[in-house]
């Protein structure tokens, strides 16, 4: 049959919002239901497309927050000058529909069989695809040692705070709060720098796989720091987005 020989095309389909979780005052997770969903790989994203009444369209990519096998969800941070995120974070309710396509991406992805220790670093909402990796690690019963270094402005800006507060066996979560810290805070309280990375990252002898996601300046600092520590550049995968307000 000619039809089955054709490569599967990535087409837009309607997603139905089945639930909304407020993660922080600016960040929401949307649980989605799709009729035709090909299982994704942790780290992939999907595109969301909105069409205005006048026909104007805007599409943006959002990291998938769930593990493969779980119902797909995305976590969206509201950008004040955004074309898509204000709708997704302020307007959308359970039962609403919008267009999506995916899963997308073959570079910033982690599979449990990739081996090595896992070092993942997030700035702000860069934690979303890394959370999918941690959930995938749990779901696949992977024993790869995993460490998440997570930089947030304040404790109230920490996304998935409850979930990350109860890490699985073999997973370590290290927070740094760059702008304000709650009383009695004993963790890091500064932007990630070379010294902090040296203290936190797995030694390069463990042949670690690193995934770094966040604002451009964060990603540049962390990826350069890891390579300086001896990480193979090809094992340091990056995903950047503009700082809030500057994309």
């Amino acid at each position: 049959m000619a039809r089955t020989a054709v490569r599967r095309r990535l087409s837009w389909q309607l997603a139905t919002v089945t639930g909304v979780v407020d993660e922080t005052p600016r960040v929401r997770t949307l649980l989605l239901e799709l009729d035709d969903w090909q299982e994704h790989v942790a780290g992939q994203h999907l595109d969301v497309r909105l069409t205005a009444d006048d026909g104007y369209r805007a599409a943006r990519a959002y990291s998938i927050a769930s593990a493969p096998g779980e119902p797909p969800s995305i976590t969206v941070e509201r950008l004040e000058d955004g074309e898509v995120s204000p709708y997704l974070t302020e307007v959308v309710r359970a039962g609403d529909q919008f267009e999506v396509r995916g899963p997308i991406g073959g570079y910033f992805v982690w599979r449990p069989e990739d081996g090595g220790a896992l070092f993942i670093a997030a700035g702000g909402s860069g934690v979303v695809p890394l959370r999918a990796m941690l959930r995938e690690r749990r779901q696949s019963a992977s024993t790869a040692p995993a460490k998440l270094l997570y930089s947030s402005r304040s404790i109230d800006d920490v996304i998935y705070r409850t979930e990350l507060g109860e890490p699985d066996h073999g997973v370590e979560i290290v927070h740094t709060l760059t702008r304000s810290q709650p009383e009695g805070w004993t963790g890091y309280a500064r932007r990630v720098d070379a010294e902090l990375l040296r203290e936190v990252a797995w030694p390069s002898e463990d042949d670690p796989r690193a995934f770094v996601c966040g604002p451009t300046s964060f990603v540049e600092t962390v990826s350069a720091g890891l390579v300086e520590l001896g990480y193979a550049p090809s094992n340091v995968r990056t995903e950047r987005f503009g700082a809030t307000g500057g994309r």
Partner: protein
Amino acid sequence: MLDGNAIGGLLLDVFGTEMTAAEGVCGHCGTPGVLAECEVYLGGPGTIVRCRTCKGLQMVFVEIGGVTCVDLSGLSSLTAGGLTT
């Protein structure tokens, strides 16, 4: 500013295959790199892709009337799945 990961869907649309892990060589400075690492700008009427090293213009995508116009003249080569253009 985003990076090439954000246009995986557009690249898949245009090339018919996953391209964020494809390797391009900059036509301006000669630096090789995966497309995921490129600088991507979505703010204007089209999608602009620049070299992370020299900021040179590598690719432009503009959709007009349902047709995507593609300009790859800023790349000296592009390799995906063993195929080089």
